[in-house]
């Protein structure tokens, strides 16, 4: 009696382990995961490893030198990094308000009938290849944006950024001084970051609690009142995260920028005037004639760019709330 009772108290082992087929499944799935992990990590490590000789050779001067003349052993990122950041910031300065307005329009102002169509249009905008935006920026936008640049140079040249080293008021003004600039490249890149940022912001705005919206309306809030008190505070993380992701995208954009800018390796704060350089456009333009050492320098430049985008995206990931990624949805 005693013996059998103690046997009953002992819990039956319900975890019978995995069957053989499942062991094979789990093991092979895990090995695929490990393979992808190694592959992807190897790319990052490879870039870092290839960058080492250059960083070792040039030391800190790699970040302070402006010229990029590998033939004369002068290689530095100062001008290129500044150009990259300038183009990305101009893209954000133009793209952030437009993305925010677009997201607000779709989630707050658009009639319910056209809302789905608007969401599709944002997705479509994100799917248009970047070279198409490059064509648009170079051939359609540049002749028009050039005049805007001249207008800014004429009337706002007291702001140092808007100065152009030519006389914008001259009757026969030097048009070429206002083309191929960081400003125009930034405008083209903004087209690529707007759908990215707008889609994330809209997604967050759509989740703003209905009860609070209704409460605000019941208290007599106008549409802007609802946005200001409910939607924007609720969506703050999405706004910041979406903008950071857009910044990461803008930093790495290659082909549209390479199509528009004319390369210039100098520290240049005058964003309206001709010539700038970005890391990705530098790589696209220089890899062809690169010798081994030059390739290493380009890889080092690429690694610095990757480190920047990675940092920006990591911060973005902290902000963009991804509550759903943890668990499966219920029936």
């Amino acid at each position: 009696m005693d013996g059998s009772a103690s046997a009953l108290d002992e819990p039956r082992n319900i975890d019978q382990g995995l069957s053989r087929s499942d062991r094979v499944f789990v093991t092979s799935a895990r090995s695929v995961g490990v393979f992808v992990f190694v592959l992807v990590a190897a790319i990052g490590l490879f870039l870092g490893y290839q960058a080492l000789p250059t960083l070792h050779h040039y030391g800190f001067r790699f970040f302070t030198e402006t010229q990029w003349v590998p033939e004369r052993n002068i290689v530095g990122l100062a001008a290129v990094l500044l150009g990259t950041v300038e183009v990305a910031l101009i893209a954000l300065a133009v793209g952030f308000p437009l993305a925010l307005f677009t997201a607000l329009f779709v989630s707050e102002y658009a009639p319910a009938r056209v809302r789905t169509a608007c969401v599709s249009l944002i997705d479509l905008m994100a799917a248009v290849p970047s070279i198409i935006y490059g064509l648009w920026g170079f051939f359609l936008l540049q002749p028009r944006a050039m005049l805007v640049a001249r207008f800014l140079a004429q009337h706002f040249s007291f702001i140092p950024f808007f100065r152009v080293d030519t006389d914008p008021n001259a009757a026969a003004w030097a048009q070429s001084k206002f083309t191929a600039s960081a400003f125009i490249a930034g405008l083209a890149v903004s087209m690529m970051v707007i759908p990215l940022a707008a889609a994330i912001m809209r997604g967050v705005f759509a989740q703003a609690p209905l009860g609070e919206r209704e409460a605000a309306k019941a208290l007599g809030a106008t549409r802007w009142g609802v946005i200001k008190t409910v939607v924007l505070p609720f969506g703050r993380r999405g706004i910041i995260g979406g903008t950071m992701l857009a910044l990461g995208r803008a930093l790495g954009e290659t082909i549209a920028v390479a199509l528009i800018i004319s390369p210039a390796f100098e520290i240049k704060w005058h964003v309206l005037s001709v010539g700038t350089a970005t890391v990705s456009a530098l790589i696209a333009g220089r890899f062809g004639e690169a010798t081994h050492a030059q390739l290493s320098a380009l890889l080092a430049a690429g690694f610095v760019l990757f480190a920047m985008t990675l940092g920006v995206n990591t911060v973005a990931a902290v902000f963009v709330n991804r509550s759903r990624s943890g668990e499966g949805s219920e029936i």
Partner: protein
Amino acid sequence: MTVVDLDRPRPVSTRTFDDYAALGGAAVGSLATVWLLYSRVFATQGALGFIVCWYVGFIALYAAVSAFTQPRVTVVDRAISAVVHGGAAVVGIALATTIGYVFVKGWPALHHLNFYTQDMGGVRPTAPLTQGGVRHAVVGSAIEVGLAVVMAMPLGVATAVYMAEVGGRLSNAVRTVIEAMTALPDILAGLFVYTVLIIGLHWERTGLAASIALAVTMLPVVARSAEVVLKVVPSGLREASLALGASKWQTTTGVVLPTARSGLATSLIIGIARITGETAPLLIVSGASTFFNTNPTHDPMNSLPLYIFTAVRSGETNFVARGYGAAAFLVLLVLGLFALTRVLARGRLESK
């Protein structure tokens, strides 16, 4: 005592004639004022700047006119509403002009039949549009994208299955690394493949090298979006399957993957649309051929984005026109893929 008609809802939008008059009056008034200032007083040129100034003037005037009759709250609401509508309109117009411009400029090349049936082998860039075409670029794009999909899709889905169905501490590390890799600028994928395969292993610049570069950019995108799709599969279905005695493997292949099929197809097509237009890595690794080449392991292979890039940089009128034709064709392809995802997504909604 007044009888309230309960059946008829009270109109909640109370726009009066006065409101519409304020809107229209502000638009016309600001147009006149800005025209006077812009083209007469400051004598500036450029339609883009004019429209921007007109819009700023319109908002200022609209707010001012509203302020005569409305309280401050309403004035602010109206001004913000005008700003938001204007911003969305700018984005819409920019998208419309982008796509429209490509088609308008591409039409001279697009309406010649030889544009689709011939390649550029032996055709000078200056040749008239009745000679030469994009056949080699279209076929090259199809081969490169196809190979990239064959490499990236199974790996991506398997990784997603691992992260979503097997899990464990290691899967979090895999997820972190994959998310980090979506930050990789596309040109660096090209530079990586160029350094390893072409410089390191002395490959030629071929279509295969290009598709490897494309697969590298596609893999994190597919893995991440496929994982999201698998996570959306209701866990009740999994539990039901396991409760009936099915193994994990049977649950995954018999329940989870079939349920997620249309979602997986969508993520696949998004990945394809993304790499079809990818130019930067191809610029580095594939090399642009002018001739027809279906062998991805030998000789350079052209592709649509690369064709567009070389064509518009050439400066030759006819070659630029061909570039636009190719761009329009590329946009059509992407639009087609995009429409396909919508159809699939709708199918998924209806089956629920």
